[in-house]
Each structure stands twice: as structure tokens, then as C-alpha cells.
């Protein structure tokens, strides 16, 4: 008998959901920033403005890249969950095939002929 793979599908699905949520939160944050940036920097000039722009661009790039990473990871979690599920189905099939056939009750046992 092969042992099934220990895998909690619910926890995997929950994690994939959390990763997607985290990515969404990051992208929502970016969208909020983008929506207000032009308005905020209107008539802002000087070295502080340059610092601000550079930092905002860095944070936006970082958020988008982090979101991409989370979504990739979520997809990997889901794919591996399906692989585990398929592997367990295969194991169950093989175990069922290897199960010795039960002898029906009352069936006379063949006696070897002399």
C-alpha cells in the first residue's frame, strides 16, 4: 500500500488567496499613489521634489514587482496543489488495483486433485 501525500488543500487554497489579496493591496496602493501624484507635485520644485519623485518611482516599481512575485507564487501554490491532488488520485487507484480480491463468503474452496 502506498501512503497518500500529506497535503491540506484548504490551507493551500487559503494561502493562494492571501497572496492574491496581498498583490491586490499592493496594486491598489500603487493606483492610489498614481491617482494623486500629478496633483501633489504641481508647482513643487527643487531638490526635495527630485528626492520625492525618485522615491515614489522606486516604491511603485517595488510594489508592482512584489505583486507580480506574489501572483506568480499563488499560481505555483495552486499548480502544486493540483499536482498533489492528482498524485493522491493515482496512489488511490494503484492501491485499489493492488488490493487482493476478497473471496465471497460461502464459496467452496477448490480442493487440489490428487
Amino acid at each position, binding site marked *: 500500500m502506498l501512503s497518500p501525500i500529506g497535503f491540506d488543500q484548504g490551507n493551500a487554497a487559503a494561502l493562494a488567496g492571501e497572496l492574491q489579496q496581498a498583490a491586490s493591496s499592493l496594486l491598489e496602493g500603487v493606483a492610489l499613489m498614481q491617482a494623486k501624484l500629478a496633483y501633489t507635485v504641481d508647482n513643487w520644485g527643487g531638490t526635495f521634489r527630485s528626492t520625492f519623485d525618485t522615491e515614489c518611482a522606486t516604491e511603485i516599481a517595488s510594489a508592482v514587482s512584489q505583486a507580480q512575485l506574489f501572483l506568480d507564487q499563488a499560481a505555483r501554490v495552486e499548480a502544486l496543489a493540483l499536482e498533489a491532488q*492528482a498524485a493522491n488520485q493515482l496512489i488511490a487507484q494503484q492501491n485499489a488495483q493492488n488490493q487482493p480480491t476478497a473471496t465471497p463468503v460461502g464459496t467452496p474452496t477448490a480442493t487440489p486433485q490428487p
Partner: protein
Amino acid sequence: MRSDLFSGGGGAVTAGGSSSSCRPDRLVDFAAILVGIAEGMSPRINALHSAVDRYLSSCDHDYTVDLSGAPVGLGGWGIALHDLGDWTRGVAATFLLADAIPLYTGMGGVNQDAVMTLPDTQVIAGLPARFASEPYLGVASSGEIDWAHTNLASQWLSEVSKGLSGADLSNGPLKTAGEVWQKGLQTEGVLTHTPVSSLTEQAGAFNDLDKVLGSAVSFAAGFAGQWDKDEGLPEGTKVLQSLGRGVTDAVSFEGGFAVGTALTVPALGPAAPLAGLALGTLASLGAGAVFDHLVPGPSVAQRISASNVTTQEMAQTRMNAENQASADSNNNPARQAQIQADAAKGRQQLEYDAGVAGPPGTVPPASPPPGS
């Protein structure tokens, strides 16, 4: 009324050195947004932490992804954003403080939202103590960004969808794009409503926005429309017919990619684990995410899972659909060639992924001549 004492042009250089101009009230508002976003991340970080712990402790190591760094990454971004918010508020505060005394004593004060100018030395002196050693956050001056005409997130989105082939889709990037598309489309106001009857029209509107998305929505529209039409038929029949319609529509979508190639399953024989691979392929697609977003009820993967259709039946359906799309494009030889090439490429990639063929692009070993 605030005085015009501090009003002036941006970035002027005074006799005493550089100066800065801004509308401090707007900076205060933006700082609050940054801090709000950063603080809003806290519950998300905690939830992610718990989910990672539960996942790693309950799932076999061979079937898990190392995600121990995920909450740290999210937390790090939140901290950096909070810092930027504090700094921005600090800059604004020096301007507001400089204006506060004349305002308080009734000696003037500038209009709210007015542009104010201060020497940089005064701004630096007014910053919170923790920024004293790095008033410019260690950033070398690199000019200004025209934010009104710059959307870094959109640029990234177009990069994601650029040049993707059907084979690329099976590797999962469209899952990434699918989630992000939804956001982008909602922002663009494209997906204002989602009845199935309107999906086909919406797909047409995506030509300029994102061709891959157009294919994905075409798939969703085709699948959902057929599903509704087949009400009352056995689940297996519904799945196969809907899959066929979705793939045909996705592949036929003008200017789109051969999403259908990877949307369903490879014709790889009866090996049971491939059923998992097939569903994984489907689930990893942006088309799945788009479908799930647009169409109420179970996801495509759930519908397939709930039916008794086999891998081979789905593979056959996919090939029939591709052939149908190819035949439909008879009057457009270039499109027909593209569909056929994408289909072959996608199939090669899937066969390679499943370990039953060499890398895409390699020529299979020639069969020995008869009689040798």
C-alpha cells in the same frame, strides 16, 4: 489669509543658496495617503504570515513553494512607504510652520493651497530629527518625473502581455496578468457590467488595450454562452461543448494569441496524473481568472472537475476547436498560419512540460527507413 511672503516659483535659487517651492497642503494629503496605505498593510501581513505557516506545516515539502520571505517582502515595502510618508509630511510641515506665525498673529499668511517657497537650509532644519543626516534620503538629484503623463504600473502591464505566445501561457504568467488585468480594466471602467451577453462586445473593445485579454474574455464569453445554451444537458456534454466554443472563440479572436492552445489539455494519452496537469494548466491561465471574475457560479476548473470528462475527451475537443478556428480563418491565410503555428508550439511546450517530448523547437529523431 496667509501672506505672500513665501510665494514664488519652483526651485528658485536665492542669494543664500537653493530654495524649494511646493503646495504644502497637497504634500500633507499625500503623506496621509502613503501612511494610510502602509498601515493598511499590517493586517494583510499578519494574515499572510499565518497562511504561510499553516501551509508549510500541513503540506508535503515536495509539493510546497518556499514562501517564508513573502510576509517580510510585504512588510518591508510598508515600512519604506511609511518612511516616505513621514518625510513628505516633514517637508510640508516646515512650510506650514513658517507660515503659521504670521497667520496666527494676523500679520498675513498665504491662501490655503498656495505655492510657498523656502530656502532649502530652512526646510532641512525643520525636518524631523531622524532625517537630519539624510535630508534627501540619500537620493542623488535626478530631475523630476512628469507624473501627469507617466503611469509606471501601466507600462509594466503592457510589458507583461507583450510577445506572449500560447506556449508561454502554460507557464502561468497570465495568471499574474489576469489578476492585474481585472484591476486595470476596472480602473479603465471597461468592465462596468458583466452579463454574459455583453462579454463578446467587451472583448472587441480590448483590441487596443490588450489582445491577450481579448482572447481570454472571448474564451469566457464563448464558454459561458454555450453553457447557458446547453442548460439541461448532462454535465460532461456541457463541459466539452462549452470548452470547444470557448477555445474556438479565443483562438479566432482577431489579433489575439492562440490562448486556446494552452487553455485546455494536451493530447498526451491516458496517464492519470496528467489530468492534474491539465487542470493546473487551465487554472494557471489568466483566462480562468477573467472567467471567474466575469461569470457567476463555479469556475471553469470546478465545472470540469465536477463532470466526468476525460483528459482525452478534452484534448480532442481542444484539437477540434483549433481546427474549427483554423478553418474559419480560411479567408485569412496569415491568421490561419499563425493559429496553426501557435497551436503546434503550445502543444510542443505542454508535451515537453509533461516529460513526453524534447524541448520545443527540437526536431524529433527521424524514424529509421523501412527495411533497415
